[in-house]
């Protein structure tokens, strides 16, 4: 009886401790980040190494890097997931090899992706420190996550659809386009959201690929500083940059939350539409 009460107490204490620390972290960032946060902070260019001014070009670079990463990763991952789920038998050698190598890819540390991106995209392919290099590196990084979630989503689509549409003599491609992909859309969007979250939070893979330059990028071949790199630089290399770093961290967290909720509502809307009107 005593043991029972003791463990209950311990577990409640742990939960309070854990939520306490995390609420502390979030509150700290909100309290210190909010005063500097304003519309002009979001659109102005950074001045005095980021101590003053805003983060306009940095937000643009972040979104461009993210865009490049997703534009590359989404078709590739969707194609791979469709192949694994719909066009290969579960025990096929090819499918097993692909899955295995993706599992390994998922475990590669982000700094190693940074090394790889630097060696391949910046130097070998001659793209230099650029938004393109950074985006492509991130695409490699989020690929396993996107494939895994998309494959799970497709496999969760009702098998009756496959049988019924095959029994009507429909091709696999048509079944995929008209029935399976729509049914898997919420899962696809949810996976995409995870991938975007992971990509936007990344720092280590970007330092040596997209670079440090905090000017407004002119093209995808320009170097661009991502928001997370900006936070890192302000806190480590710029004395007196803490206030800007706090606000940038707050913007990054808000951006993540925003992407999450947009994706969620999109998924819900799609679900709603496919049941009611399509």
């Amino acid at each position: 009886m005593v043991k029972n009460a003791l463990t209950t107490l311990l577990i409640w204490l742990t939960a309070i401790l854990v939520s306490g620390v995390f609420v502390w972290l979030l509150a700290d960032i909100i309290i210190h980040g909010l005063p500097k946060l304003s519309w002009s902070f979001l659109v102005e260019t950074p001045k005095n190494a980021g101590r003053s001014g805003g983060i306009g070009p940095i937000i643009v670079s972040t979104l461009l890097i993210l865009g490049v990463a997703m534009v590359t990763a989404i078709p590739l991952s969707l194609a791979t997931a469709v192949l694994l789920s719909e066009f290969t038998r579960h025990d096929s050698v090819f499918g097993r090899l692909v899955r295995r190598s993706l599992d390994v890819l998922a475990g590669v540390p982000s700094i190693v992706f940074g090394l790889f991106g630097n060696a391949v995209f910046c130097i070998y392919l001659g793209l230099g420190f650029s938004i393109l290099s950074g985006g492509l590196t991130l695409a490699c990084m989020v690929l396993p996550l996107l494939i895994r979630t998309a494959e799970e989503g497709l496999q969760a689509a009702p098998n009756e659809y496959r049988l019924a549409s095959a029994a009507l003599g429909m091709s696999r491609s048509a079944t995929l386009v008209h029935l399976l992909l729509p049914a898997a859309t919420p899962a696809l969007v949810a996976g995409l959201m995870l991938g975007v979250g992971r990509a936007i939070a990344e720092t280590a893979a970007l330092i040596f690929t997209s670079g440090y330059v905090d000017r407004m990028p002119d093209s995808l071949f320009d170097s661009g500083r991502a928001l997370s790199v900006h936070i890192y630089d302000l806190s480590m290399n710029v004395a007196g940059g803490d206030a800007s770093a706090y606000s940038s961290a707050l913007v990054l967290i808000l951006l993540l939350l925003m992407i999450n909720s947009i994706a969620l509502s999109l998924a819900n809307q799609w679900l709603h539409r496919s049941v009611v009107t399509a």
Partner: protein
Amino acid sequence: MFLSRTDRQLAALLQGCALLAATIVLLILLFLIKESWPVLQHVALTRFVIDASWHPVQGLYQLTPMLSATLYSTLGAVVLATPLGIASALFSRYFAPPFIAGCYRRLIELLAGIPSVVYGFWGLITLAPLIGRLHPPGVSLLTGILVLTLMILPTVALTADAALAAVPLAYVRGAAALGLSRWGLISGVALPAARSGIIAGTLLAAGRAIGETMAVLMVVGNVVQQPQSLLDSVRTLTANIALEMAYATGVHRAALFVSGLALMVMVLVLVSTAELLSRKRHYG
């Protein structure tokens, strides 16, 4: 398997994409080896351990201080995060009223998504000065361990939660029918049944801790030395790469790629162990 013409064309296209996706990991290995070749070719692997210090430009390649910093910080974080994470999972699954459990799970999910650079920044600004009052300078192995603990805790908690959720309800009902107390039920039935899932999750979290760069780099002080106490400044393998890549050239750069290769091997061992464990769980 019969496929119509459109199906066959689509399948060929998809196969090409899948092949591309699958070769990325090979490309990574290939390029890591290619870039570290100038060093691997001339320097025996033992030199990374027995050399006097880390001065790659002068041909000294001792990686042990960085290796031990990585291992200590990972070990410390896993030791702290595992009980906290499991307790968190137990809390939301068995102890908390449904509403609180839901909020708690949302909080943990939110934290799993917070960028590592934010954890590092917070550790640098808030945690390090607190520890600095104890023993300056504050940026130390201990700070690194604490920040890493916070970072991997959500991973441990979420995987443990999923593993507990997968315990068949019949076991729990059966145990309850035998009149077991709540703790008896958890320690006797739920935890053993979820054990391999929890261990796999912990290993994944350890892999994340080893590979983590920014959060650690920002709070451990980055002095290349063998730590004598928890309050010493250290430099991890990942931080070393991030700090020196900016100006490294020639053999120095190659040596950094060697440490990248070492990191990859360590993580791969952990990930494969975790995978083996979770596979065992599937087959009974």
